[in-house]
């Protein structure tokens, strides 16, 4: 297998693993938000704001790893 083939394979596998980790984390976040909103509907807007901010931060870390995958995939 040439070096480019391994790089592309690594990029694909890496993207899959990244999406596993990120969606698990953000899914737990969304579940906690819905539970809190159901329990106490009057604080739902604040909880929703905190959820959006935490989701953006987690996605920021996701994109670090995704940029590494992109660098591997572009390699030629």
């Amino acid at each position, binding site marked *: 297998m040439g070096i480019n083939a391994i790089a592309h394979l690594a990029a694909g596998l890496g993207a899959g693993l990244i999406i596993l980790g990120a969606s698990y984390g953000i899914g737990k976040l969304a579940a906690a938000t819905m539970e809190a909103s159901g329990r106490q509907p009057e604080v739902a807007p604040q909880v929703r*704001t905190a959820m*959006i*901010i935490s989701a*953006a*931060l987690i*996605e*920021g*870390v996701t*994109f*670090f790893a*995704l*940029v590494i995958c*992109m*660098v591997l*995939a*572009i390699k*030629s």
Partner: protein
Amino acid sequence: MIFENPITPDTLQHVAAAVADSAQKMISHEASGHGEKFNFQHLLDHVKDSRTIELPGFHIELPQLPPVHLGSFVLDLSPTKHVLFLLLCALLLILGAISASRAYRKTFVPHGFVNLIEMLVVFIRDEVVLPNMGPGGIKYMPYLLTTFFYILFMNLIGLVPYGATPTGNIMVTAGLATVAFFMIQISAIRSQGLKNYLMHLTGGVHWGLWIIMIPIEILGLFTKPFALCIRLFANMSAGHIVILSLIGLIFMFQSIAVAPVSVLFALFINMLELFVAVLQAYIFTMLTAVFMGFGVQAAHESHEGNH
């Protein structure tokens, strides 16, 4: 290739040639299996910086200025597509701000578009600046508002047809993050004083540990703006690459039957991109305000401790 962006004349000539080449192919493509195989590089050329501006029907080749020599440092200051869009967004921002402030000459409560701007400004003041930085944060509001609206305009202008996203270029976001870094340090030094600020760099440990503590703390100063830079860059460029890849599926399969599915998905991703554009501008501004607020709150703690 993303991180080393050598702005040398022949590299950009090569990129410009590739952009013109791929534009020609996409415009005059016949779905009959001739021409070259679909290449991911052609896709990326639509996201990267280039020397030509594409308008409906024709190209504009941007001029190449002679390189400027500063000692042994060679600067190539020729305008490229992203530079032009940076300046366009700055112009839009200045015109918008001037016309919005003019509306306040007659009345306290403006009507129309200025009302929307006021809503956003009040939102930034009440939800972002005051909770994180306290009343002393009002003097940093001009910088934070500029950051928010500039990044918002730059993100949104990439979504109109024939528009480019300057924030999809890592050098642009690195510049924004550098300014944010300087503003964070300046706000910390102004509210704490230089001596307190340097004391916080040691972390309050015994002086014997300073030799390992100070490099780690200095490194920690740099990671936060670096994260801001990468988050904005990757969010913007990844969205555009996904949209282009979905449309590129049509060219990859070379059949028209893929088109309805592909365009539908691309429409959905475009809606998501709109949301992400606004959200990322808000996140950048909010995180800058939070990091500035750390410095300001440390000043309050040390004041309380002394009394």
